[in-house]
């Protein structure tokens, strides 16, 4: 009986606390991509320090997880903003609308490059996207031609492309749950995959098997899933000069004394090359704002103003110091204007 009373008291306390909280929230709640997290957190911190508002709370849930939470409904218990390292999908917009989240403001914040890097102790690699596809796909076209797919037979880079060194293919990369992996597969591997005409033809007839061929990474040990922790990949590359690693540009930027980026299609992953779009493996970063919450939760429009100010996302802003690649001036002004007027998203 004693324990019943305690459980009851606990439940009552919990319920009371719940209703108290449901009434109001005085800080912005942000969820979403772990790639955008390092940039969003800097903005949040600066926002908290320079304004009278509380520092926004930022959770790192991944792009997909963030959009799911974001679309769950309108109200203080749901997040106000979600970060994404890819564009929102139409299915997600529909899901949002079903739960009453009708007006979403899309903000593109800049670009992130994905690099293939190896230790400074080794020679830099000069790869093409075709090389990357041939080295890492589960199934590749056989060498005789004729449009047949075989299990990936390549053991060394030299077998993939005679111009490359005769070292074993060993690539450390993020697991499938990661947005970096999605973008790498889409941009680098599919980019190489499309260079085979018969696979490209497949895209029109049979999109499913096209995706399966281009997006499936080999599982025979040449590609090693190293977890979400990019610092760990850098450490492993240092210890093993033969291995290549896949991670975001900001980690290359911070560890330029330990690792070097491989050239992809002849372009080195530098700040300038990613900014002007000549480096092929780069992706845009976004965040999405729930328009219904603007004005209800204090500070959202001020947070947006901070994020889209020149001192944050400008060419010399503090986000650039953290490794984000800014958008060209014109695009930036366009998005800044959209944000100011809170123009809702339209998917074309």
């Amino acid at each position: 009986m004693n324990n019943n009373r305690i459980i009851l008291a606990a439940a009552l306390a919990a319920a009371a606390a719940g209703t108290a909280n449901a009434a109001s929230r005085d800080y912005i709640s942000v969820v979403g991509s772990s790639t955008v997290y390092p940039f969003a957190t800097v903005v949040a911190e600066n926002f908290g320090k320079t304004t009278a508002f509380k520092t926004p709370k930022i959770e790192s849930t991944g792009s997909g997880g963030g959009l799911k939470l974001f679309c769950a409904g309108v109200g203080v218990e749901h997040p106000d903003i979600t970060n994404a390292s890819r564009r929102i999908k139409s299915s997600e917009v529909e899901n949002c609308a079903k739960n009453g989240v009708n007006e979403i403001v899309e903000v593109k914040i800049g670009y992130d490059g994905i690099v293939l890097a190896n230790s400074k102790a080794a020679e830099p690699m000069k790869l093409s996207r075709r090389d990357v596809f041939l080295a890492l796909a589960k199934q590749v076209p056989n060498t005789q031609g004729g449009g047949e797919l075989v299990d990936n037979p390549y053991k060394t880079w030299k077998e993939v492309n005679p111009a490359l060194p005769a070292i074993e293919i060993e690539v450390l990369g993020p697991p499938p749950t990661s947005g970096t992996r999605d973008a790498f597969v889409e941009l680098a591997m599919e980019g190489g995959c499309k260079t085979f005409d018969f696979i490209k033809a497949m895209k029109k007839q049979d999109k499913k098997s096209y995706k399966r061929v281009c997006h499936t990474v080999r599982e025979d040990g040449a590609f090693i899933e190293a977890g979400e922790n990019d610092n760990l990949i850098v450490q492993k590359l240092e210890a093993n000069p033969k291995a290549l690693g896949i991670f975001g540009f900001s980690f290359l930027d911070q560890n330029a004394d330990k690792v070097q980026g491989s050239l992809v299609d002849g372009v080195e992953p530098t700040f300038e090359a990613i900014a002007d779009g000549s480096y092929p493996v780069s992706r845009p970063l976004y965040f999405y704002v729930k328009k219904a919450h603007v004005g209800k939760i204090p500070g959202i429009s001020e947070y947006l103003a901070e994020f889209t100010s020149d001192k944050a996302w400008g060419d010399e802003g503090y986000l650039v110091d953290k490794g984000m690649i800014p958008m060209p001036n014109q695009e930036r002004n366009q998005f800044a204007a959209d944000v100011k007027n809170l123009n809702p998203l339209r998917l074309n």
Partner: protein
Amino acid sequence: MSKMHLDPQRTIERVNATLGRRYRKEQRFRRFGLGAVALGLLFVALMFLNIIGTGYSAFQQTRVLLDINYSEEMIDPEGTRDPAILSSANYAGVIKQALRDRFPGVTSRGDKRELYTLVSSGAALILRQQVMENPGLIGTRASVWVPADDDIDMLVKGHIDRAVPESERRVKDQMVAWVESLEVEGRVAKVFNTTFLTSGDSREPELAGIGGAVMGSLYTLIVTLLLSFPIGVATAVYLEEFAPRNRWTDLVEVNINNLAAVPSIVFGLLGLAVFINFFGLPRSAPLVGGMVLTLMTLPTIIIASRAALKAVPPSIREAALGVGASRMQTVFHHVLPLAMPGMLTGTIIGMAQALGESAPLLMIGMVAFIVDIPGGALDPSTVLPVQIFLWADSPERGFVEKTSAAIMVLLGFLILMNVLAVILRKRFERRW
């Protein structure tokens, strides 16, 4: 029966023949055991060496002595001393002015930008606080120690090699030259890093601290303790002293034992579904964290408490009942006080487990960037193990030592709690 009458001489011979082998076997087994212990200790020592080796330097912070001019025209041009104006004044400009005064030779725009990165962006906040506390400083000059930028901190601590080519390190040659000239004048010093212990999280390694995470852990553990101790003890007392022995109580018992083996992430999912989605409690709050961890620690506490109750000899109960005490009086006046040390030990061990847990908290939104130090169980907060996880994944070099230092603090708390459990057991446990 014929074997009983064997020749004693032959028996001894047979024993002797295998004796050496059996001794050797025992020796071998002992060496294996010793080897296993040594290997275990070696790994523990390696772990501690590695963590302390990388982490100890985070307890020091590089500071730079700047000659600050609290000029009236920069801070309070109209001389009103209005707190609102003092609060939003351009202190970063004051810092920049001090740096320009120290290095008058730096004129180009790009060089100036590099010069300004010598000190942390937190330096301006220090000045602001000084002026807000003592507006009399305006118009005076003083030398102030301000934190260096994280890259400079790494350079001074020797984590950035000055010998590698300029293009391969984040600190450029001219910045190294500036730092060296400051070092010659004794304007660079390493001091004890109070920021690390007192402030909340930050994206700037030199401003980041575990204060917020420690407070979050504290609130979470208080909630866990307040819920799990009474519920756990009440369950144990009921099951041990009052419950009838039947199929139902057997089922409950089996389930409690099984719960102890459930992976902790499952409790996180349960917490998400029940506490957050159904009851509508806030995400990222220590209240929900504590409730989830209560579910996780309850089996530990119940099992330990029942063992403690079982260890109280039946003669105590019989004596109490014999002089006319009710069963409730027997339990609360005699059995429970005697079992309490064992129950507390179990509780502390459960709490230590909860302190080190991060998996269930992933689900309920406690893996988050939270700068403000939480002031209660409903404020968003994070906990120590989650802070370690977040820093381990940050690109800045300065967070490597911060990660290890945070692990050192967490291990310190865990060791403290376990020592407390041992002391409780040693001092208060009674044996019959």
